[in-house]
């Protein structure tokens, strides 16, 4: 993202010079290496690197504003997003209706605010849900290995054998054929998201399991769950968290894509994808493009903001990957 060279990029050759393997004839004396509290300085380091990424900071700001809007939006909204007004349909943007009204006279701006709230709820729920399931199962499979591991891998194999959208469509139809609720969408997106999280977690745990500090913990007789929770998780969860965070944007777009196809959220729910699909039906009517353009802009801004932050998080947690 940034254009100024980062010290991490100078690994070759200047950095390589500074980090050549230690040489035997030098025996460092304790006096000159101040011992820092690792956890604090680590997060401070992450934040310092994160701050340097301007786009990531912009993303964070936008998400902050959107979050506030999502929380207090229902008080800000000038109209009830479900309220129909049949004498005032398909009105373009005006002082009364900032973003105009839809074919049933519902206020588009209020609808967008409602959709924002929905996007946050669904995005965050999917992230938390897939993290809980994926991290738990992935850690168990990775730490125990053997039959548990094979079982989990085969299950995820089946899940990952489906093209994402096809799986989502069929599952949602199976869960909720009548399109009555929003929660089946969350459940299905979690069901489809956890296998990747789980696999990532498993790989991380597999790598950490062999590390010397885990060996050390085992040698002093620490019990298995304690080793996983205290020693393995803190050292291996960062990439999983970044991945899960990326999942927020994916979940928001997936929900919108599904309802764009007329699947998932109830038919009258002011959901961005559904609003786009409904609005696009009128695209040949002159002056009606606001119907699908505004929700499109809303979704693009939200997704971009989350993508910027996810990028920044990834870069600052693992500067080598830039």
């Amino acid at each position, binding site marked *: 993202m940034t254009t100024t*060279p980062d*010290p991490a990029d100078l690994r070759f050759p200047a950095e390589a*010079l*500074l980090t*050549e393997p230690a040489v035997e004839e*030098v025996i460092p004396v304790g006096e000159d290496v101040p011992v820092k509290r690792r956890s604090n300085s680590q997060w401070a380091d992450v934040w310092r690197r994160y701050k340097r990424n301007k786009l990531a900071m912009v993303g964070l700001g936008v998400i902050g504003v959107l979050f506030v809007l999502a929380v207090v939006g229902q008080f800000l909204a000038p109209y009830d997003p479900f309220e129909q007004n049949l004498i005032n349909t398909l009105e373009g943007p005006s002082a009364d209706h900032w973003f105009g009204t839809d074919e049933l006279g519902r206020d588009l701006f209020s609808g967008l605010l409602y959709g924002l709230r929905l996007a946050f709820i669904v995005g965050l729920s999917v992230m938390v849900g897939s993290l809980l399931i994926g991290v738990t199962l992935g850690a168990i499979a990775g730490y125990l290995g053997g039959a548990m591991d094979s079982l989990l891998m085969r299950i995820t194999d089946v899940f990952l054998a489906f093209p994402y959208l096809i799986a989502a469509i069929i599952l949602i139809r199976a869960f909720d054929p009548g399109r009555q609720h929003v929660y089946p969408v969350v459940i299905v997106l979690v069901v489809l998201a956890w296998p990747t999280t789980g696999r990532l977690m498993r790989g991380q745990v597999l790598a950490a399991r062999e590390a010397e500090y885990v060996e050390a913990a085992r040698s002093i007789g620490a019990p298995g769950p304690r080793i996983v929770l205290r020693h393995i998780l803190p050292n291996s969860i960062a990439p999983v968290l970044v991945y899960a965070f990326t999942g927020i944007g994916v979940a928001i777009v997936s929900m919108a894509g599904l309802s764009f196809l007329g699947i998932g959220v109830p038919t009258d729910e002011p959901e961005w994808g559904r609003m786009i699909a409904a609005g696009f039906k009128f695209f040949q009517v002159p002056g009606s493009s606001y119907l699908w353009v505004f929700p499109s802009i809303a979704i693009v801004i939200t997704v971009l903001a989350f993508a910027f932050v996810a990028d920044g998080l990834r870069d600052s947690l693992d500067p080598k990957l830039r």
Partner: protein
Amino acid sequence: MVVEDIGLDASAPLLEVRDLRVHFKTDRGTVKAVDGVSWSISEGETMAIVGESGSGKSVSAMTILGLIQSPPATFPTGDIFLRGRSLMRMPEKQQRRLRGKEIAMIFQDPLTALNPVFKVGDQIAEMVRNHQDVSKTVAKRRALDLLGEVGIPNPAVRLNQYPHEFSGGMRQRAMIAMALANDPQVLLADEPTTALDVTVQAQIMALLTKLQEDRNTAIVLITHDLGVVASHADRINVMYAGRIVESGTTDEIFYQPRHAYTFGLLSSLARMDFSRQERLLPIKGQPPSLANVPKGCAFHPRCAFTTEKCTAAIPVLEPVGGDGHVAACVHSDRVAIAYEERVVTP
């Protein structure tokens, strides 16, 4: 070998580095990786550059090959001459023709230095074909001969294997075969044995010596391992924090060190050639960051001989007796006496 190049001077030293400086600009300040280094080497000679990690020894070798990219590097002063031709003022294209043909290099870790996705034989043949106008078959044939020459058993099979199928020692042999494919005049060996087992180290060094005798190659041996240097080098340059602090023949360095840093290195080394020896003395502290080199003599914070004179100015290399034995230490006399006291020479 190549005579058609303009500026070739048969009387000039084979390879000469003159007042070379290589600096890098980073967030943490200017890293002075090489800061005014001069040396030269002639045919059949083995010259060692010895120093701790971060002393600038590898960077100077990479600069000779033109592998240091600028930016981020800058070269404030200095030049490098191959038979009197300036490598630094030579256009990149011409420099490239010398790379691998007249100056070749082998690296510390032969596993990462070989491309994992190409067969070893192809990687050697590529080196041949890049500098000689021969067919693929001939190049492959030459690769086969080279693998045999560096002592790889069953070379016809090994030719078609990938680097990860070789053991560490075999990989380094393959690297050497590749480096010598065009019979270069100068071989830069950057820590060639550091990544290897001790027994294999000796084999590799013996191989290098043998090949050197066959071809009269000049070898620049870059290492932190004084043990390797003692038995193979003709001359030694000791580097510290980007500068040469002492230079002399191997005997001079080992038996009459005149720089406090050389003294420190030798005092931390177990010696078989002395009848009696005092306890090993490690050098305290760590090498300085090259972005922030101590004032005056860079070694003074770690030195046992430090006085105020050490911080006044950067000491320059001065003759300390012998033929070309120089040291940059204001206390070279005290170092000499201390060393005499420390060891009883045979």
